[in-house]
Every structure is written in structure tokens, then in C-alpha cells.
């Protein structure tokens, strides 16, 4: 899915695969080793000052993909490059760019602000440690100054009051702002925001996203913004002119600009997500389920062919056999892993499947009949 980009991307993932194996211990005589493929053959470029939002259901591998992108998770296949330098080669000591620099450049904001700060440390300590690590030449006063400046910048004023508190003395929104500041203090090139706003009240989410965008202007950071909520993803992506990538069971099934994904989704899964996103305004009379089964397949035993065929209302016989590659749609960067994106594909001649054909888990009853049209 790589695209011609005027500049080298900050981070580029090529055919990245991440597998987790759960061995039965040293005496696992029965060898029932379970391999979970969290990320399967994903390619993605994140450009300078770009925002890519990654959406999908929990367990679809979006968090693993994110951590792989910032070099916190070693892929079992494929490569992760930071400005052209393979991250893991650098880590192993054979890179042109020192791993140190890569480490500093790729940062993270976690989902749960409650556990993102060391509970036994004052906010001050948590913020000072990373600057001390990366700017050892700064005096204590200079370091403090940076912390104060940035904290006031995110609206935590007077900074003095907040810095001397312990995390449990801050509200969720305040904690998350401290975490944002902590990441920004390293002046990173890419921040992985892993469900960074999901734990906040709905009314605080817009505020937090605005703050992230504001700091992006100052620090020229790119974001990989992970969310399970399409409307949040759309808000931040649209404000920054970014892209949305939709993940399902380890694969990016559709990627494109906000307009392409929100207004003109191609993949049935994206359509289902859009259906599932409730809106305040604008009526959606459609009460039919755009999926055939509610429950996600067992990730240790993924379906053959297209991953989504067990739930897809459009699935045909060919989908149970073949895994669709990413098809280009139009001239933009819009891609979808669905045969329906190819008007000449044999899909269109393939027989439709009935529900008896699919071996689905519990709750496999047909929900709604044909929701596609």
C-alpha cells in the first residue's frame, strides 16, 4: 500500500506480521502451541506531520500494529523503517541512524491515564526523568522551565500546583494531559495515541483532540491515532487532513482519506462500522444488521479466505477461498481488501453463500437478512 510521497515517510511498515505464540511451558508435551497472528502482512506509511487514524474492534490487532510502528514490538515478519532506517537493524547495532534517536523520536500515549503515570512519583518527577535522559546538558532550572512552559500550554495552570501532586490527585483529563506533555517533551516525530481518549468522558474528548492538534502545530509531530470510535477518528483526521485505516483481524481492510472512508466506504466491514456509529443528528432508518453474525471469530483460528466472510452480508463463494488483496479505488490513496472493489473480479459470478455454508461460532444465526442494498 505504499504510495509515492514527496518526502520520506517518518515511519513506514512493509509487510509487517506479528505473531504471538503461547507455548505450553517447557514440559508442553502435547505441543498445543497456539499462535495468534495479531498483525498480518500490513504495509503502511506515516508521513511528516500526518495523522493516520486506525480504527477497528478490540482484538483486531490495532494496538499491536501501533506498537510495532513505534518500535516497541518486534515484528515476526516484514520491516519497520524510521526515515528509511530499519528500526530493528538499528536496535541490533547495524544501522546508520542510532537506535537512541529512533527511540526518542517515536513516543506513545496510552489508553488508561490511570496507569500511565507512576503512582508513587509526583508529576514533576515523571516529567523530569525523560528530559534528564535526553537533554543531560540542561541544567535543572532549564529542565524545570520546559516542564512549566508546556504544562501551562496545555492549560494546567498554575503549573506549580499540578507538578507537586501525585497522579491520584489529578482527574482523568488532567492525567492524560500530563501524559501528552511527557511525550511531547522529547520532541518526537511520531506519537502513537493508543485509544488515548477512550477513557475520557465524551465531553472531554473533543478538547483532548484539539489539544493534540495544537501541540502538533508546535512540535511538527505525526500521530498514529488508534480508536474504536469512528466519529472520534473522523474528527481528528478531518481536522488535520489525515487518513483513516480500518483494521479487521490483523489486516488493514480499507484505507483512505476521511471523505473516502466516511462518505464512500467500499469494504462491507467499514460500512458495518459506520452503521454501528450512532449519530446525534441525521436519521438512519436502517435497523437491519449489516453483519451476519455478531461475534468476532476466534483469533487463534482465523477463517480461510477473506477474514470477514463469516460476518459479511455480501460474501460469496470465492470469499471463503481467496483472501482479497488491497484493490485500488479511484486515483486517490483509497484501498480496500474486498473483491467488490474490482468490477471484473470472478466474485461477481461466484454463487452467493447461504448461512448454512458458513461454520460460524455461537450466535451464528442470521441477523437481519440482506442489509447491503
Amino acid at each position, binding site marked *: 500500500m505504499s504510495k509515492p510521497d514527496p518526502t520520506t515517510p517518518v515511519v513506514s511498515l512493509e509487510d509487517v506480521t506479528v505473531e504471538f505464540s503461547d507455548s505450553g511451558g517447557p514440559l508442553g508435551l502435547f505441543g498445543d502451541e497456539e499462535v495468534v497472528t495479531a498483525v498480518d502482512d500490513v504495509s503502511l506509511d506515516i508521513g511528516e506531520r500526518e495523522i493516520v487514524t486506525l480504527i477497528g474492534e478490540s482484538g483486531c490487532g490495532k494496538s499491536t500494529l501501533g506498537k510495532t510502528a513505534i518500535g516497541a514490538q518486534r515484528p515476526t515478519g516484514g520491516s519497520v523503517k524510521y526515515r528509511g532506517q530499519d528500526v530493528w537493524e538499528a536496535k541490533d547495532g547495524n544501522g546508520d541512524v542510532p537506535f537512541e534517536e529512533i527511540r526518542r523520536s517515536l513516543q506513545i500515549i496510552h489508553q488508561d491515564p490511570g496507569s500511565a503515570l507512576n503512582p508513587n512519583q509526583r508529576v514533576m518527577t515523571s516529567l523530569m526523568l525523560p528530559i534528564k535522559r535526553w537533554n543531560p546538558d540542561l541544567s535543572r532550572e532549564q529542565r524545570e522551565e520546559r516542564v512549566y512552559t508546556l504544562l501551562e500550554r496545555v492549560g494546567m495552570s498554575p503549573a506549580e500546583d499540578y507538578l507537586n501532586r501525585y497522579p491520584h490527585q489529578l482527574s482523568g483529563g488532567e492525567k492524560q494531559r500530563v501524559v501528552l506533555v511527557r511525550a511531547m517533551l522529547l520532541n518526537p516525530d511520531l506519537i502513537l495515541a493508543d485509544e488515548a481518549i477512550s477513557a475520557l468522558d465524551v465531553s472531554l474528548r473533543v478538547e483532548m483532540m484539539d489539544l493534540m492538534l495544537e501541540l502538533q502545530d508546535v512540535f511538527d509531530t505525526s500521530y498514529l491515532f488508534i480508536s474504536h470510535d469512528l466519529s472520534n477518528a*473522523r474528527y481528528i483526521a478531518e481536522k488535520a487532513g489525515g487518513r483513516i485505516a480500518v483494521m479487521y483481524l490483523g489486516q488493514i481492510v480499507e484505507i483512505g482519506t476521511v471523505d473516502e472512508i466516511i462518505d464512500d466506504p467500499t469494504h462491507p466491514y467499514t460500512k458495518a*462500522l459506520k452503521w454501528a456509529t450512532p449519530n446525534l443528528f441525521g436519521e438512519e432508518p436502517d435497523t437491519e444488521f449489516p453483519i451476519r453474525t455478531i*461475534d468476532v471469530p476466534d483469533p487463534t483460528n482465523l477463517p480461510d479466505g477473506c477474514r470477514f466472510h463469516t460476518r459479511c452480508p455480501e460474501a460469496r463463494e470465492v470469499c471463503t477461498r481467496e483472501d482479497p488483496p488491497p484493490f485500488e479505488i479511484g486515483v486517490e490513496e483509497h484501498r480496500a481488501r474486498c473483491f467488490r472493489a474490482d468490477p471484473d473480479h470472478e466474485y461477481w459470478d461466484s454463487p452467493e453463500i447461504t448461512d448454512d455454508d458458513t461454520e460460524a461460532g455461537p450466535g451464528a444465526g442470521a441477523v437481519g437478512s440482506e442489509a447491503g442494498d
Partner: protein
Amino acid sequence: MSGDARRSVGAAPDAADAPNDRRDTVFEVRGLDVAFEMSRGRSRVVRDADIDIYREETLGIVGESGSGKSMLASSLLNAVVEPGVTTGDVTYYPPDGGDPVSVLDLSESELNRFRWEEVAMVFQGAMSSFNPVTKVRTHFRETLQDHERNIPAGMDRARDLLESLYLDPDRVLDSYPHELSGGMKQRALIALSLILEPEVLVMDEPTAALDLLMQRSIVSLLRELQAEYDLTLVFITHDLPLLTKLADRITVMYAFNMIETGSTDEILYNASHPYTRALLAATPDLNVAVDEMHAIEGSKPDPVESIRGCSYHPRCPLADDDCRSEEPSMFTVESGHEVACYHYEQAAEAIPLRGDANSGRGGGTDE
């Protein structure tokens, strides 16, 4: 039972002689207060709440975390956790004109019968609502047993319920809770909550931990169940968009007060409290242009320090001296739409919303 002369309680007109336009009430809540004694002082987490819940409707209660909405829900079952103290009147009207029940005056054994038989509750920690060491089947059986119901008939009902929630009854019943996914557990819990055929189902953030598709599916299934079993639903959440897909009426809570109540359409298109309007504006929505969404100014009030006057005034653009000195009572915007704000008539002007322009996404919004 002590609910003999409960009908004429509080400010409500005598329900027995209610005029025709008045709907059949299940719950009548008057002057409800929930308070906790804390080391830093007394904390009132529900303040003087009045509300009627009508039979077979879906009432949505929306508010931020810590706004008191869960406490309000728990008090419907007199189930506020210790050391919380619930005062006021909660009256339950059984179907077919049975004697009204004053829920807060029930004895322990009466309460044990009332709960789950009349009113069931599915609450926030649904993921851990099952005893981890017993099978799901046991949960159904013991509930039937302790309420002296016919077990085979009850288990048949359990199967029906599970099936209508798109679960494989045999597999789910024979599973231990940890063997089910979050969405399956949540649905199994909903089935469990309906096993004794309650009149009212109170749901406190039942979908918060679930994925979008599962959330939406459950909401759709709930609507079906409600129609099939003539349920009254009380649905509590901070997720306003989701609520609008389910609720007939919505009550908005802010800082332990009920500040606005009205039909879903009224709340969406004629919101009259500045907070409700700000909340609507702060909620990301696929059909609204991004530059029309704004964060709410200011921050949540401290739970212990009580604010003089209207609790929203420190954040409110319309606040004046009245708001600062005295708490507003409920004003009627329209029949069935009430709001606790002195300036409800100016709110729409001061905080514009493009809610009524439901013509899809606004154009030209990119950057």
C-alpha cells in the same frame, strides 16, 4: 407491605385520578437524595431528583462520569452501596393496578423479592457480574430457585432469551464466565436479568466496555426484547449518541442534579439548558462538520464542595447574579420538556447548534 397510601406522594397530582393524557407510571421519584458521609464532609451525589418513569417506555439518563446517574439508577432498587444514604420517595406501581410499593421502605425480605422479580438491573461491571467459579447455567438456576419459580419452565425461558440474543443456549449455559467473550457475557447477563419477567430493566452503562458493532447490536436487540416482553427500560450512559438510538425520553444530569428532561427529539433539537447544548456541541458526530464541534469550557465541579446557585454557573456563558445566588427550579419548556435554567429561552441563541439542519455532513470542512 407498607405502600398503602403512597399515591398522593410529593408534588405529583394524584395518579389514581390522573387525566387521560397522563401516561401509565411505573416509577414515581420525588425529592430523591443520595448522600455519602466522607472525611471531607457530606457529599450529596443525587440532589432532590423528581422524575416519573412511564410503563413500556425507554428512559435514558445521560451525564458525565461522577454526575450521580448511577446512584439514581441504584436507588430505584434501593441498592445504593453502603455507606450511601438514600432519602426521599421512590414509588413503584405494579402492573394491573396492584398496590403501589414504596421502595425505600421495603424490608430486607421484601426487597429480595422486589429485586429481579419487578425490577432487574444490569450494571457497569457487567464483565465481572458472574460468579467466576460457577457455570452460567448455575446463575440461572439459583435465581429461579431462590425466587421459588418452576425451574424447567424457567430454564426454557432462559434458552428462549439467549436465543433471541443470538447466543447458542447450550454452549453458553455450559460455559464458565471466563470462557465467554465480553459481548457474549453482556448478552447472557441481559438474558439473566429477564429470567423472572421483570417489569422494569435498569441498565447502567451496559455497553461501555464493548465494541461499536456489539454496542449497536445490543441496542437493536434491546429494542426487540422490549417490544416482545413489554419492558420498561431505564438506560444510563455517558454516550449520548448511542442513547438517542434507543431512548424515548432523555434526562440530562450534571453535577448530581437533573437539569433537563424531555423527549429525545426535544433534547436533540430544542435543547434548552446551556449544559445540554454544550454537551451536544462537544459530541463528535459523523453528520456534523468538524468545526462546529467544541469542547465544553471549564472543568467538572468538585464533588464535595457544593456550589451556591446553579451548579453549572461557573462554566455557563449565560450566568448572571440569579444563577450565582439561587438554584433554579424546573421550568416547563413545552409539555413534557422541563429544564432547570433561568435563561432557557436564551440558551438556543447563546449557544447555537446546527442540530436541526440534519442534512448530512456540512461541506467544505477540510482544514
